[in-house]
């Protein structure tokens, strides 16, 4: 799985990192974003809504919130 490590970065950088790397995977595959900025929870969900991708799950990974995003198109 492609991992985007945005730990230590403030908004809007985690979302920008996600946007830069979503095309690293094929449609149907997922990107895992590690982001400890509290704004990332809202912003990654909003980005998925705006760009038509899917926020599959949110969990803890290596002590930081991790967001699993599926590329849909």
């Amino acid at each position: 799985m492609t991992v985007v490590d945005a730990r230590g970065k403030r908004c809007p950088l985690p979302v920008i990192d996600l946007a830069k790397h979503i095309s690293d995977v094929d449609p149907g595959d997922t990107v895992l974003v590690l982001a400890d900025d509290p704004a990332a929870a809202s912003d990654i969900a909003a980005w998925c809504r705006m760009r038509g991708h899917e926020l599959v799950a949110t969990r803890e990974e290596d002590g930081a919130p991790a967001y699993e995003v599926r590329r849909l198109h």
Partner: protein
Amino acid sequence: MSGYLDAATAEPLHPAAREALLAALDDGWADPDRAYREARRARILLDGAREAVAASLGARPDEVSFTPSGTVANHLAVLGGLLARRRAGRRLVVSAVEHSTVLAAARLHEAAGGDVATVVVGPTAAVDTAAYADALTPDTALASLQAANHEVGTVQPVAEVAAACRDRSVPLHVDAAQVVGRLPIPPGWDILTASARKWGGPAGVGVLAVRIGTRWRSPAPEDDHETGRAPGPVALPLVLAAAAALQARSAAAADDARRLGQLSERLRSEIPHRVPDVEVYGPADAAARLPHLVAFSCLYVAGEALMTELDRAGFRVSSGSSCSSSALTPSHVLEAIGALTHGNVRVSLPSDADDAVVEGFLDALPPIVASLRDRAGVSGL
């Protein structure tokens, strides 16, 4: 053209308030609670201000108290409403998008062992009346609901929620800070709060109104001022200025709402055409929004940088983005509605806003957003 577009924080001082304030510095400095001549004059002035504010709120003068701020009014309203009904229960019901001062009082209540039920909202920030009513369990001591949301402008269904509260004998606190002097006060409140600087009065005056027959007890140490509701002597000159501003604003409210509503509509419809990847928040129906407030977020842009650049271009706005607040967390309102929390801008039009300032803003915004995106290297993302 003034580029001041942050009226939801503070409406510029109304000329009637300035005039009243200057006069009051000469006539209204004495303590209204004393018996000598200067004090009696101060008492007459204070009574007059109270009557004027009460009339604007649809309240009786003896229901209205002045506090040092809207913040203090909200703290007293919530904590005093809960304290008076301890025997009924220890549950407070709030919406997820209340003003931070209401939520801060809720957290204090929770820390003291009370319960807080938070009613979630949908993407428009409007409370669902049925969901709110469901939260009113038999042990509910107090419910609190804003008249309109301060960050995205959504007018809440206060009358409907008030009816549900009345059916269950739960008192309702309405934080009316964003509507007083702008829109009719929604019916059904038991406790009402407001802030003078939002209607063109000076900072330093809040209002706490408690309906006759509503149970409320001051959570502050005992004090006689303002019939025991708000500790400390009132800042009489500021109160007189606040009352003068409210009278003037209330008289012009319907006209202002119509005019500002048209300007807001122009901003709402035009911003997404001129700036790519923008989301505009609040309900699409103009009747369900504050007339003077437009909130939107720009993808991939830092809210703080956006505010700085807009300020440089002559436009003063506020933002709910975390990088532009003292806390590291984004606005709880933006989170609650699933909004993009970065690149957020709240435009709130003062009563003197005109076509020129709106068109100026619409011209200034697109190149600023484009240059911030260029700098961040996000084009094509």
